[in-house]
């Protein structure tokens, strides 16, 4: 069995200073988001509009997708449909093979992470260079990204320096961010110039125009798409929005929620291929239509991948993205991934205190913590919890259904804790590892009430 969130989180936390730094860094991003959002008096209105546009779109998805396809084709874009990750990868591979291309650059796309495109292509002997700085760092290290906006946020400057020393031959021990960034810049510049094919993600696809928008801060999507003769854009089908004017809602929310910027440095609008360029769009389902059919979870598809829920989540900040063992971590990942593989991801909806911060920070009003609660019910009803937990819960439910038994159990527990504290104050009691047990009172409230109040 693969390690679960709780175990991976424990490993992460074992490095106390790294955990504090990770927590503080992401909290700093959350605070930047707060300041940016405070700057817009219409913030809550924007969230409501964004939510309604997405709800409407999800309810009319097939129409908008067909509209998009029609307009994109009219613009000269080649449109592909992929039912799952494998089909997506095969389509991309097919295009690469047809052109007999070896040099490929890719800007950030969580969808290609979800479909494991790099892995697939490398099995075919094709190397893809990730051009987002953070993604390039984790790619060198053969690690998955730990955050959908800040892929290398789990690493320190020193670790980046070591990685670059090994792969880019930078000076050993030089941890200066400017020096390291410049080295990456030179390295990536060569890759851009050499490349014949660029893969990008899609932030928004517009049904009315058949165009799409890609948001980056590094301009790497543009560098790739503008130098290569073939551009493939991969998108999950929920990226569709009806009209170009709706960008005025989403672009204002996206960067403010993600990093506290008013807008991403580059918001690039692609409408048609350049002369002699080939432009492809791969529209991917990969479990999304199944999620759309789950009444309780469909609105998770409103997500615009800003990661505000990551940055606000007190559990994510202290456990790191890799503890979620999936492409999309954090609270949103914990409601998306059980749909992809319920058994493998049965632990994720439980990696939360249900504090509700994610739901309230979400720019498109996804009721994330309520869906976490609902996934727990589904996972239990599918029998995906341990028999020990099941037995314990059954016992508890039985005790709480029988007032006399409840009182007896309470008295016994208090009596035991008082007379034989070592029965609970020991290593088998997880609570006691790092916490004292509550002090046992002389009587329960009910006993006090009967003695003092009951006439």
């Amino acid at each position, binding site marked *: 069995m693969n390690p679960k969130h709780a175990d991976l989180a424990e490993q992460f936390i074992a490095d106390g200073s790294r955990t504090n730094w990770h927590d503080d860094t992401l909290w700093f991003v959350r605070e930047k988001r707060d300041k940016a959002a405070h700057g817009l008096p219409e913030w809550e209105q924007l969230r409501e509009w964004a939510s309604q546009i997405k709800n409407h779109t999800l309810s009319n998805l097939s129409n908008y997708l067909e509209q998009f396809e029609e307009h994109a084709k009219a613009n000269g874009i080649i449109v592909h449909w992929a039912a799952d990750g494998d089909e997506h990868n095969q389509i991309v591979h097919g295009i690469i093979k047809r052109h007999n291309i070896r040099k490929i650059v890719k800007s950030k796309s969580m969808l290609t992470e979800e479909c494991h495109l790099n892995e697939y292509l490398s099995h075919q002997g094709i190397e893809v260079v990730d051009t987002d700085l953070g993604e390039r760092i984790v790619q060198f290290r053969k690690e998955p990204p730990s955050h959908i906006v800040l892929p290398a946020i789990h690493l320190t400057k020193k670790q980046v320096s070591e990685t670059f020393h090994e792969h880019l031959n930078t000076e050993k021990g030089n941890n200066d961010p400017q020096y390291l960034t410049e080295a990456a810049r030179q390295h990536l510049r060569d890759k851009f110039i050499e490349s014949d094919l660029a893969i990008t993600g899609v932030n928004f696809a517009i049904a009315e125009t058949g165009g799409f928008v890609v948001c980056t801060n590094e301009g790497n999507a543009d560098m790739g798409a503008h130098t290569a003769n073939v551009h493939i854009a991969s998108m999950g089908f929920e990226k569709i929005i009806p009209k170009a004017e709706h960008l005025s809602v989403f672009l204002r929310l996206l960067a403010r929620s993600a990093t506290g910027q008013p807008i991403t440095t580059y918001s690039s609008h692609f409408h048609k291929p350049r002369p002699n360029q080939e432009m492809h769009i791969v529209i991917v389902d990969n479990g999304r239509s199944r999620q759309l059919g789950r009444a309780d979870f469909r609105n998770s598809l409103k997500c615009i991948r800003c990661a505000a829920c990551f940055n606000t989540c007190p559990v994510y900040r202290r456990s790191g993205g890799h503890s979620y063992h999936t492409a999309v971590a954090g609270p949103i990942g914990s409601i998306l991934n059980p749909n992809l593989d319920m058994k493998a991801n049965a632990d994720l909806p439980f990696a*939360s205190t249900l504090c509700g911060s994610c739901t*309230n920070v979400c720019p498109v009003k996804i009721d994330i913590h309520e869906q976490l609660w609902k996934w727990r019910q589904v996972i239990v009803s599918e029998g995906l919890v341990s028999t020990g937990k099941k037995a314990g819960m*059954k016992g508890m*439910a*039985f005790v709480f259904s029988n007032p006399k038994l409840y009182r007896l159990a309470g008295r016994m527990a*208090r009596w035991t804790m008082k007379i034989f504290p070592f029965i609970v104050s020991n290593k088998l009691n997880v609570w006691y590892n*790092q916490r004292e047990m509550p002090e046992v009172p002389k009587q329960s409230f009910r006993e006090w009430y009967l003695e003092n109040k009951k006439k």
Partner: protein
Amino acid sequence: MKIGLFIPCYIDQFYPQVGIATLELLEKLGCSVTFPLEQTCCGQPMANSGFSGLNKGCDANFVTNFSGFDYIVAPSGSCVLHLKEHLKDESRREESQKIRDTVYELTEFLTDVLKVENLKADFSYKVGIHSSCHGQRGLNLSGMTERMLPFFSKPEQLLKMVGGIELSYPKRKDECCGFGGTFCVFEEAVSVKMGKDRIDEHEANGVDYITAWDSSCLMHLEGILKRQKSRIKIIHIAEILNSRNSASYKKI
């Protein structure tokens, strides 16, 4: 006005002084309060673990005990939120719906129903406010830092009526303490780390007490404080609002 007092199971067993303070406070404010003797639990521990399907008996017992009151009041935002969202008894739908509509967390009952404007309470200590999440974000007891709306706080409004009290918020005003029900044992490492971080911020403020509207958060924080041999104590908001004289105040 007939009020049913719901004392959540772990308060009944481990923190009776919170129940006593709640009852005394309501009675001082002129309420006629009954404590139904056969009550047990709201059902949240099972439901939050994914076992809401096991709650039929627990829910039925709750409905039996709490039907027929004008209001039900409990000193716990978390249990009240659970009841409001999930209590159901298929054979007594009307009664369970009425309970969902009339169950109140203590502080919102004081501010919204009784409309309390002053309290004869006195508590001369520096108190750090821990904003228990379920009451705050679930029941809207106060505004929150995630939302861009004017700030308000029902618990703070009441605490400000207490004589001699000095209030403070931690640097991260409304971050979760990490209790989270069974999360506190199944995700022990994260849970304890979250609690320690809350405590560090209160410590930096030099508080004497940490208060909250959920004893579950406080039980978790108390466990860590005691292990650290900290001088900071925990106290439920009901105990502060009911406290008469700080000089003679002691744990019951």
